[in-house]
């Protein structure tokens, strides 16, 4: 009877970001100040951004495409953060997923579509989960702080990618630092042509819903929340805290890895040096913004997708550097904190 009242749940998830619009407004205002100080007209810049995001159907689908990896990553991180594991390593986990998916898409390219397509995604999950669980293992076994280890693993993942695309996996012509295209059998179908909207977006929505149910409706979710809220009480209740740290790192890493696999299998069709423009870091803000509620991540993911997509158009049309968006995102997080909307790891009441 999980699906009962789902509409109500959705509304509540929407409400959980009811105050963040004010936070976003403040962040945009601060962004406007910076724009103005730098000699730009904030109105022109923001209008270009708005148009970039919502001008027509194609623009909107581009927003959803940008939102897809953010929803994957944000929903996964929501699980880790609820478990009080500060996984800052979604970026590296994304890369590992992309590497695994690309390798499968190239070297197993002859497999039939019905096998290859899911296999690519599964290997992406495995790659990301492995990279995440490595940090979990280091924490459990050696007490290494996950904030530092996941960040170090980000750098290492990016260097591995750099090595692969300039060396062993470089495209046959060897012109650019990138791999050849993956087999067409691995491509995720696009619907709504001529837009690029693809199956990955639907998978992302499903994952967010599944992780929401996992977190609030199952005993596994209870366990994760218990560990995250009071690890000592969890141990007292007979919960193996270390296993749950591994699990939370596996889920969040797997989700980030899936995001990487989907990016390869639906958008770029190949791996290259900077395939992620920082999705892993955006995902942190996406999750925090809605109090680490996987369902709310759908909204915040789309919001950040719009910011990102819009900022690219802003850069093209209004000549405003798009990195500004990173600052706006950071300001959003701070504003949310300031409004006390974000309540660290304390649970908002569910059920």
């Amino acid at each position, binding site marked *: 009877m999980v699906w009962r009242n789902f509409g109500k749940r959705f509304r509540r998830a929407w409400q959980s970001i009811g105050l963040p619009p004010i936070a976003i407004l403040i962040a945009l205002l601060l962004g406007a100040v910076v724009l103005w100080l730098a000699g730009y007209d904030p109105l022109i810049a923001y209008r270009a951004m708005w148009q970039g995001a919502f001008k027509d159907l194609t623009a909107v689908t581009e927003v959803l495409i940008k939102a897809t990896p953010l929803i994957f990553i944000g929903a996964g991180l929501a699980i880790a953060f609820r478990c009080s594991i500060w996984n800052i390593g979604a970026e590296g986990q994304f890369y590992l997923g992309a590497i695994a998916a690309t390798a499968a898409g190239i070297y197993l390219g002859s497999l039939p579509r019905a096998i290859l397509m899911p296999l690519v995604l599964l290997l992406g999950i495995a790659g990301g989960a492995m990279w995440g669980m490595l940090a979990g293992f280091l924490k459990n076994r*050696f007490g290494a702080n996950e904030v530092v280890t996941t960040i170090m693993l980000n750098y290492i993942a990016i260097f591995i990618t750099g090595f692969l695309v300039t060396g062993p996996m470089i495209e046959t012509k060897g012109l650019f630092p990138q791999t050849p295209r993956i087999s067409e059998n691995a491509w995720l179908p696009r619907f709504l042509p001529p837009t690029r909207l693809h199956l990955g977006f639907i998978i992302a929505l499903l994952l967010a819903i599944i992780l929401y149910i996992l977190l609030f409706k199952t005993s596994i979710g209870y366990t994760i929340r218990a560990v995250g809220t009071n690890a000592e009480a969890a141990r007292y209740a007979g919960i193996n805290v270390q296993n749950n740290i591994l699990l939370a790192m596996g889920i969040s890493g797997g989700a980030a890895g899936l995001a990487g696999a989907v990016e390869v299998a639906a958008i770029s069709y190949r791996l290259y040096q900077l395939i992620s423009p920082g999705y892993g870091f955006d995902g942190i803000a996406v999750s925090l913004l809605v109090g680490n509620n996987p369902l709310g991540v759908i909204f915040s993911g789309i919001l950040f997708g719009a910011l990102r997509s819009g900022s690219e158009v802003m850069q093209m049309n209004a000549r*405003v550097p798009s990195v500004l968006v990173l600052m706006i*995102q950071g*300001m959003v997080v701070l504003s949310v*904190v300031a409004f006390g909307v974000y309540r660290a790891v304390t649970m908002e009441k569910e059920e």
Partner: protein
Amino acid sequence: MELLPALLFLQSTLAATWRMATPILYAAIGEVFSERAGVLNIGLEGIMLIGAFAAYSTAFETGNLVLGLIAAVLSGLVCGLVFALFTVTIKANQIVVGAAFNMIGMGITGFLYRAFYAESGKVLSLKTFLPLDLPFLSSIPFLGEVLFRHNIMVYATLLLVPAASFVLYKTAFGLSIRAVGEHPKAADTAGINVHRTRYISVLIGTSLAAIGGAFLVLAYADQFVEGIVTGRGFIALAVVVFGGWSPWGAMGTSLLFGVFYALQLRIQAMPNVLIPYQFLQALPYLATLLVLVGLTKRRVRAPKALGIPY
């Protein structure tokens, strides 16, 4: 390898070690103060970036490196005030606020750099702090190159570390910091203003981090590049832990990282080395992981109230 080239290699590596350790050391010393008072600042990376940009733009516009350094300190103080406002007064989760600072630092410096410099067509390089060749000492074979041909910001660490140690262990203020990070309630009942002590410690931390960032543009590279800090802020966090939350420990560990950086640079510069350069670049980060893993046997404990708002 023959003897002379080997010695030259060693000499150039060791000479680079101290220099490479310097930015990390500034940030780490600052973070020692912050963490000893109970505030974990994972936003060091972003604050170093802001410090680097403030130093660069000021020095570039005025042609005065000292003004650049002052600008960096001011930017660090502003960041510190905001950081402390959120983590001490509002009692927000320190990791969340730190993560936000990293985004803001990345975003705002990248934006301003592109807006004002990247495509301006100007010559973007600075005249950096020059090495001060100490008379006589610098001409000692081998040692002269390794120890006595550095710039003033590198030498300054020789003052910074003992000074930090003195403040922390020999002054009433240091005693307050150590008490506040360990048992803030006890400090409070002893009449210490916990919030003020944490504010000041955070400010020390962020201004030193900003100086560390400024070093990169004023005394190392001669211009700003987006993301120029490349993880040194995070490495400084690991250095603090491995250094056992003490200034001298931070110095030792920073030098260890300096060796990795220097090695990576030197080996890359060597012809006919078959190791892919990406692996060399990854060396400091791998070393950080190994260092954290190696910590398992040590019994130095983190300040008990670290990360917990009061």
